């Protein structure tokens, strides 16, 4: 597989504010890269830099192994779908889709053929004569995609394309984008602040914060092995539980102590780590804290605690309790019989625990 997009040591400042810090990303042809992070993290700026709509201050952007750092957007062989769709308001759908070809002097019959093909693919054949103002949000979204598809570019760029749609339509379009990626085998870069979108679409995720890359990896890597507490907290819903704990070194293992609210101490043995700091955070996903009735696993630890809140979510029921001085969410089966205020046993899967240094926030 060859590299379709390579970003090397890219920096970007707006005045004195640094928005991108030493960004390095490499993706292969056919990859679906998702840039995710809270607003203001620089993900949209990075996408604009890839598109050439923003000029980078230093570093290089390679598309298909060609240095594109000083190339105009139109010559980068990319197509972009925008959050506001950016359809040309005075043109019909047909003209919107063919505008790029018209500007580039593509012959009329080729334009017509491609338009027909794309309209069929996106099922917008009956909308071609309408103006964007006469379309619903979902239809506009399709037209915006059509405008990108018709170009048949080497790289698709999506800038939060679904955030203006209502929840139901968003899920539908998400599936559709995924199908499109699968059918076309195209390379895509996708910006979102929605971690579920990132998880479902990506073959590779870049988590960003304050202009720095926090972690690059497959969705599974990001979810199961977050590099630091920011990623652990940002990815996953509900987020990973981070529990305060202290360590004591014993002969050939560490003893990890969690001080409960009533003063009692919960102790866990850790044999696999050779070096742990004194203060650390235990990262446990909600699904790795379960009910006693599922006590068929080995390497578990039982913590007895009071149920504070129960949040039924249909497929699961989230149970909130306090372990140490932190609120912890556990994912229970939806048919659970627990009641608020009762003391129950929570089963923690020790094999799935992540350790973070409390001071640096980094994974250990």
């Amino acid at each position, binding site marked *: 597989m060859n590299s379709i997009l390579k970003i090397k040591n890219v920096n970007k400042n707006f005045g004195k504010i640094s928005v991108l810090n030493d960004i390095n990303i490499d993706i292969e042809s056919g990859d679906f890269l998702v840039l995710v992070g809270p607003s203001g993290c620089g993900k949209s700026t990075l996408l604009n830099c890839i598109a050439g709509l923003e000029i980078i201050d230093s570093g290089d952007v390679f598309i298909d192994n060609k240095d594109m750092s000083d190339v105009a957007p*139109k010559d980068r062989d990319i197509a972009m779908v*925008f959050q506001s769709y950016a359809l040309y308001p005075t*043109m019909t759908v047909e003209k919107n889709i063919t505008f790029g070809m018209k500007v*580039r002097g593509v012959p009329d019959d080729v334009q017509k053929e491609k338009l027909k093909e794309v309209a069929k693919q996106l099922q917008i054949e009956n909308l071609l004569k309408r103006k964007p103002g006469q379309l619903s949000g979902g239809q*506009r979204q399709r037209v915006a995609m059509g405008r990108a598809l018709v170009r048949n570019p080497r790289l698709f760029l999506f800038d939060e394309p679904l955030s203006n749609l209502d929840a139901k339509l968003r899920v539908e379009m998400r599936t559709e984008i995924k199908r499109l990626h699968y059918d076309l085998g195209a390379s895509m870069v996708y910006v979102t602040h929605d971690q579920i979108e990132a998880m479902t679409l990506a073959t590779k995720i870049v988590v960003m914060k304050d202009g720095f890359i926090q972690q690059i990896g497959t969705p599974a890597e990001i979810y199961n092995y977050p590099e630091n507490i920011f990623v652990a907290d940002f990815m996953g819903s509900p987020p990973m539980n981070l529990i305060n704990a202290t360590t004591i070194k014993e002969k050939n293992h560490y003893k990890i102590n969690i001080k409960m609210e009533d003063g009692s101490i919960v102790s866990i043995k850790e044999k696999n780590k050779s070096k742990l700091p004194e203060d650390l955070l235990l990262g446990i996903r909600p699904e790795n804290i379960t009910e006693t009735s599922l006590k068929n696993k080995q390497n578990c630890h039982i913590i007895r605690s009071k149920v504070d809140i129960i949040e039924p979510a249909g497929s699961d029921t989230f149970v909130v309790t306090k372990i140490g001085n932190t609120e912890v969410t556990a994912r229970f089966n939806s048919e659970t019989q627990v009641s608020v205020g009762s003391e129950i046993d929570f089963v923690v899967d020790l094999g799935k625990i992540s350790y973070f240094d409390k001071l640096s926030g980094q994974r250990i």
Partner: protein
Amino acid sequence: MINNINNTNYTNLLLRFLLYFILIVFVLYYLLPLFVMITTSLKSLEEIRTGSLVSLPRNITFEAWGTAWSSACTGIQCEGLRPFFWNSIFIAIPAVFISTLIGALNGYVVAQWRFRGANIIFALMLFGCFIPFQVILLPMARILGLMDLAGSITGLIFVHVIYGIGFTTLFFRNYYVNIPNELVKAAKIDGATFLRIFWSIFLPLSLPIIVVTVIWQFTQIWNDFLFGVSFSQAGTQPITVALNNIVNSTTGVKEYNVDMAAAIIAAMPTLIVYVFAGKYFIRGLTAGSVKG
């Protein structure tokens, strides 16, 4: 209970009556000068001397209109308003067209192509709107002289274009700033150039603001007197200057009917423009945003 309702009904009716009464009084107050102008322009001099100011004409005559148009004296020359009317047309139309076009381009650049210092340049242009006419008279006269345009129609066009750019830029900038910048980005990726984006995407969106700008500029330029009187010479004076000359240079009996007719003729084009495009004017002024 029923009495109560009747009472409020009567009070409402009374208030409504009062409201319309006041409105009608104001309407009459505003229409009176126009009424006097029109009736006076249709009277003969004899009738003006003997009759009352507000009475209707006994014999309607268009003689004064004819005189005002083609034979009233503006100083030594007695050709009426006609040549000056055309002067004003030849000044106003190109000046409106050019200043609107430049304003549209400027507004497009300032609102959508945020280059370094765009805001400062826009602020300076805004400042240009507030420079009093009097301040630029002497420097402008000097520049027109250097450009060899002194006293010419081209020179007046130039002055009006320069003075209008501030306003036209302001209008277009405020209109374009509401259009999402993503349109420019999308068009850039589609391969369109700076001018192509303006021509194919922004200009077709601009009808309401073009109408506003054209009305504004046409009214300003047509009604301008100071520039007209300062930068023109015998053959190039605009209609406002000629009107002043007609009214002021009469010897002997003052021909009020001719003065009134001349004033109405001079005001007619701006009225016509407003009547035909006024609907768009209001719409354009209130158009907040353009929804895709």
